[in-house]
């Protein structure tokens, strides 16, 4: 078996590189990972600020928001649109898929870098340009896109409909560039995992994190085409005066919805799976036990991925599609609870008879499961057409998808971040600040979003800038819930100060990390912290799967993948 090393690395390892080549235009997967991660986290601050504006406006409509000012209806539409867009496309995707995937895939499979390091660098810089375009769109005449993150035409089609012109064009451009960037990244992930595994590593020796990143990349690859087509048609409608979505000229607005959600629902799993992957790595290490049913989790992930392609119309039960389509799509939708249930129950079963320690990564991993469970089960309410008639486009749905996305995006990412921080930066994080960060995030997340389930049941529909305009939402009861959600959101944002403080403190004064501070099995822990450019001086020889913890007959309770028996 031969394992060719990319030519660029023979050269790059030979001599010291300039500042620009090391930190900015780097082809090193670890640097690119950090670039993606910190760009994503910076955008999370922007998305978080927009969430703050939304919550302040809803709790006390009309009163100027400190730090922002009065929120007009047009601005409110732009704020909710950009909050969703940023959190999904510019936070979840870069930190989970590009950030963790880039850092971990080569290290975990014992490779020196990605299969295509230059393509990898190009991917980040295209993403960077898309970020700049998106941020610029806030400041152009007419303001940023204001048609919701789903940007349905005809609202997004003609400037006269939404009051926004250039902002929408920039939005489409930014999203299209971003997807081009992730396509390059995704192809890289898949090729790397298939071709560049260290000697001895079979597919079923790969850590679940690698499986999940690859599965997410494949799902993204297959689903993104229709969306890009949809976006191009929209761009043509806007700029070249075509009529793909214009019923007056034979077009159909529902076409866009199908193209959008054919991508949009698989996208949920593109985000969720890397989060599951991080949890799957962390639970065994902090329970000192093999993950429960490794192959079962792999197969249920594949089933999830396949099912995710035949559920999209559950976003459109009341959108004007033929009502006879609803029940078939409902069945496929709620069937996803089976493979997802298998994965979650396998995670819980991993804890059974373990030897559990509750350090920060483990707390966030357990928190991810605990919170996601509620997001998962409320998916049934939305996935059943008859109940969706009532809760569609209400805050019940808003609560549901925040309960699904916040654990998979933030809890899982924070778990991963605290867990791999010693490997990324060569220093340990502060445990006290980490625990504070966890409990603050966990408590305030629930305070914020549980209230939204109740507001949704009361009839609070989405994207309205002033709930007091509606009789059902003018009650003291509804006002109290609005304030609880707002105070929760303020607390949730404040809790992130603990993360920023921890980051600064640990990067400057953190205790130096040894190679394997958590006594873990996977290959990334066999190299220095942080690993040098090129990762492995000699490629490891893989002898076993990644989860041999507390194996009988050994004094140590872990057994690295490459350790001689």
């Amino acid at each position, binding site marked *: 078996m031969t394992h060719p090393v990319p030519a660029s690395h023979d050269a790059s390892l030979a001599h010291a590189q300039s500042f620009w080549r090391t930190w900015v235009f780097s082809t090193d997967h670890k640097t690119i990972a950090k670039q993606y991660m910190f760009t994503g986290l910076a955008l999370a601050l922007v998305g978080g600020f927009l969430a703050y504006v939304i919550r302040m406006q809803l709790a006390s409509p009309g009163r100027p928001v400190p730090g922002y000012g009065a929120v007009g*209806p047009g601005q*409110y*539409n732009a704020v909710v649109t950009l909050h969703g867009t940023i959190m999904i496309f510019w936070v979840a995707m870069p930190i989970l898929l590009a950030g963790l995937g880039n850092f971990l895939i080569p290290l975990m499979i014992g490779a020196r870098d990605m299969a295509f390091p230059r393509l990898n660098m190009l991917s980040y810089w295209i993403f960077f340009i898309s970020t700049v375009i998106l941020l610029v769109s806030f400041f152009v005449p007419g303001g940023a896109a*204001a048609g*919701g993150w789903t940007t*349905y035409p*005809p*609202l997004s089609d003609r400037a006269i409909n939404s*009051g926004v012109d250039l902002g929408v064009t920039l939005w489409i451009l930014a999203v299209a560039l971003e997807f081009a960037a992730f396509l390059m990244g995704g192809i890289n992930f898949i090729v790397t995992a298939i071709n560049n595994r260290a000697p001895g590593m079979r597919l079923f020796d790969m850590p679940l994190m690698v499986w999940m990143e690859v599965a997410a990349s494949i799902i993204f690859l297959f689903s993104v085409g229709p969306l890009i087509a949809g976006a191009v048609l929209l761009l043509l409608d806007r700029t070249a005066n075509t009529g793909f979505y214009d*019923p007056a000229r034979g077009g*159909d*607005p*529902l076409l866009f919805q199908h193209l959008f959600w054919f991508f949009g629902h698989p996208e949920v799993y593109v985000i969720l799976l890397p989060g599951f992957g991080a949890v799957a790595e962390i639970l065994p290490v902090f329970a000192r036990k*093999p993950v429960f*049913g*490794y192959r079962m989790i792999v197969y249920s992930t594949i089933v999830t991925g396949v099912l995710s392609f035949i559920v999209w119309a559950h976003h459109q039960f*009341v959108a*004007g599609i033929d009502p006879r389509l*609803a*029940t078939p799509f409902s*069945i496929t939708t709620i*069937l996803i*609870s*089976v493979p997802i*249930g*298998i994965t*979650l129950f*396998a995670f*819980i*079963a991993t*804890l*059974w*008879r*373990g*030897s*559990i*320690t*509750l350090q920060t990564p483990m707390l966030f991993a*357990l928190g991810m499961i*605990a919170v996601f*469970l509620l997001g998962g*089960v409320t998916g*049934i*309410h939305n996935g*059943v*057409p*008859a109940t969706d*008639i*009532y809760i*569609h*486009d209400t805050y019940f749905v808003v609560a549901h998808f925040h309960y699904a996305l916040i654990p998979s995006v933030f809890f899982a990412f924070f778990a991963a971040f605290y867990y791999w921080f010693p490997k990324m930066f060569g220093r340990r994080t502060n445990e006290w600040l980490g625990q504070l960060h966890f409990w603050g995030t966990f408590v305030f997340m629930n305070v914020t979003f549980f209230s939204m389930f109740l507001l949704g049941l*009361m*009839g609070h*529909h989405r994207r309205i*800038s002033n709930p007091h*305009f*509606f009789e059902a939402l003018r009650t003291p009861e509804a006002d109290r819930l609005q304030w609880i959600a707002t105070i929760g959101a303020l607390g949730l944002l404040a809790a992130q100060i603990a993360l920023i403080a921890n980051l600064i403190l640990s990067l400057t004064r953190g205790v130096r990390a040894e190679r394997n501070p958590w006594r873990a099995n996977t290959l990334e822990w066999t190299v220095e912290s942080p690993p040098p450019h090129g990762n492995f001086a000699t490629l490891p020889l893989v002898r076993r799967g990644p989860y041999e*913890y*507390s194996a*009988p007959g050994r004094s140590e309770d872990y057994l690295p993948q490459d350790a001689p028996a």
Partner: protein
Amino acid sequence: MGLESWLPKAASSFAGDVDWLLGFITWIVGIWFLAAEGILIFFVLRYRRRPGVRAAYVPARRLRAMAFVLVPCAAILGFDLVIDAVAAPIWHRIKETLPPAQETIRITGEQWAWRFRLPGPDGRLDTADDIEVVNELHLPVDAVVQFELTAKDVIHSFWMPEMRLKQDAVPGRTIRGWFQPTRVGHYEMDCAQICGLGHTMMKASVVVESREAYESWVREKAGSAQVTSREEGPESR
């Protein structure tokens, strides 16, 4: 469950079914949710690291071990199918059938108002005594109301919380549907789909009243469509 206490008071013939289904689903998933959280918390407390106690080696490579996960998930599959089997007839009644109409109205969503066209005293649409009203609709209680829903400019969504009814209004399509208001009162009809600057403000008031009161309202408004048409210039229809 107490779920109903959060919902606006039901006011249509099928609202009870929707509420019942919401409760039914909440009970089923609620029990699963609490069981899963309970086991999770129990394991974390029970299996905290203790000196001298080593974790068990349970990789669960065999079906026998995996059964601890697969059997509950098979049960989930069963519950999924039961939920959809129970829900499908409710959806079918609300959205896939059209009971004979006692009143027929045309609803058009536009930026940012709901426009209604009703038959005048002659009971037929597209005649000289047609009624056209904006953001204000009267309906007789207990009558089966059929609607033809469309949108003029962008997508809107017809949403009456008390009726438990929502339906997007799409430009270029006419979507038929029905509901039967069962309680006299004043209701709000909102737009549930973001539709531009005035999305929040897009709201009609719907008065459900006795047959007599409704008929006197119809007489009062009869022919208003003509007036509107003249004001707006020649109409193609």
